[in-house]
């Protein structure tokens, strides 16, 4: 079967002689050349802060007096589909009168974790939450396990921050935990950065 022969037309011939289709294509690419780039200059200058619903690295919360909310009930361990959370409960002797049940060890294996958020749902005291830290890469095994002390440190993106925006950032080098991106201050830019792709 040969290709379908197009009927001859004067307009088509003129179009081909003056390369009108080429001119159309070239003007399109020229428009894109001068248009704004959609690239997010991620580690160097800009950073995407996720929405509040984002499920990133775990964080352990404290109450307003600074006491750990976790009561070491181990419900998160049971809810976890990948068995990546380890909790060892002990009696807290420092309590006034009654000794509390607290976690002496609360470790999460981030290599196994699939960030499903079941631990969050299971937690009766809203102690464990999935935060918005997503820069989990490092060049050794130091960032695969997060211990209780590290998880109790508040994450860089505060809870109240709405998210879903690009903020100014810069690349910082931290020997212990890989290469995190430091967000010096929050300055909202265009919230729907993907709309630039138009």
């Amino acid at each position, binding site marked *: 079967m040969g290709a379908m022969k197009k009927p001859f037309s004067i307009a088509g011939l003129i179009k081909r002689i003056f*390369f009108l289709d*080429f001119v159309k*294509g*070239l003007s*399109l*690419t*020229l428009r*894109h*050349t*001068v*248009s*704004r*780039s*959609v*690239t997010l*200059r991620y580690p*160097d200058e800009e950073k995407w802060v996720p929405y509040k619903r984002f499920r990133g690295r775990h964080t352990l919360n404290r109450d307003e007096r600074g006491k750990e909310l976790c009561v070491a009930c181990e419900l998160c361990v049971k809810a976890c589909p990948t068995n990546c959370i380890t909790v060892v409960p002990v009696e807290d002797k420092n309590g006034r009168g009654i000794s509390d049940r607290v976690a002496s060890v609360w470790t999460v294996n981030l290599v196994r974790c699939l960030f499903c958020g079941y631990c969050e749902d299971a937690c009766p005291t809203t102690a464990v939450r999935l935060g918005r830290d997503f820069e989990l890469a490092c060049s050794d095994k130091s960032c695969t396990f997060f211990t209780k002390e590290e998880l109790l440190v508040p994450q860089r993106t505060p809870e109240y921050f709405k998210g879903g925006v690009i903020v100014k950032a810069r690349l910082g080098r931290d020997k212990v935990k890989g290469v995190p991106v430091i967000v010096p201050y929050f300055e909202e830019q265009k919230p729907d950065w993907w709309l630039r*792709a138009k």
Partner: protein
Amino acid sequence: MDTAVLIEVVIIIIKVMIVAGVLFNLPIPLTWIERKVAGHIQSRLGPFRVGPHGILQPVADGIKMLLKEDIVPEKADKFLFKLAPLIALVPMFLIFVAMPFGESVTLPYVDKEITLYISDMNMGILYVLAVSGLSVYGLMLGGWASNSKYALLGGLRSAAQMISYEVALTFAVIGVVMISGSLSLLDIVKSQYGGVFNWNVFYLPVGPVWFVIFVIAGMAEMNRIPFDLPEDEGTLGAGFHTEYSGMRFSFFAMAEYIAMTSIAVLTTVLFLGGWDDPFGTGILPGIFWLMGKVAVLIYFFMWIRFTIPRYRYDQLMNIGWKILIPVSMANILVTGFLKIWVP
């Protein structure tokens, strides 16, 4: 030996060294510019991490290429395999022996007049065509010596493509020679002096047609999209340089960039008045006009590359044999009649 002759020889050697040095280093900015052009056409930024705006990216690429393992396939024809990149590269340098960059400048302090071309051959354009035709042997030999079916097919395609488009290219050059009445590149430029309307591209009605034919055939000569069938990665792996790696591969890439430059310079000399000032203002020295025109043409080639998809093989042959060659034959007739009847 006479001192005057000695000085002439030394001047020629210095000129050759300058031209060769510039050409050797030209692929370094050109790769960066090409990647930037590609990036911005696709609404990206292009290289950005190495140096300010990624300007040191070609250096990083060069280090990578140098440090890569130089693989020669076991069953390859070793001698030809190593020779092919050089055969592709060297003719591209040889083209510039005949290329004029300006008439002459007088050196300050020593009061010595120096011509801005290495050699003004009285049939320079024939030399350029002959030498540029040689570089296709590099591609063919590289494809043959690799002992790989993809490379062989790429080499054969490049041979077929060169034969088809060399004809159209030569026809376009014949048209220019008829218009200008000389085979010397210097005289061709001199015949276009006096502003933009004396340029060959505005020799109506045939000039623009010759220009389009020359640019299309030139793009096919330098093996770039939309005519890069010899290295069509969609169907041939990487075409004739499938088996090449490291520095040998970068020789082919350099040959492509220098070919692009040479086609741009040749187009400027033949059609765009060379170093002629388009408006007759005389503000800038001629060499800057030449460089500006060449830069615009190189940008145009890059722009085309990231706009138009690659032609299919039968389309390539159709364009070459069924459109370009008949059109150039008709155009030669028209040019001849114009030369006879229009003073």
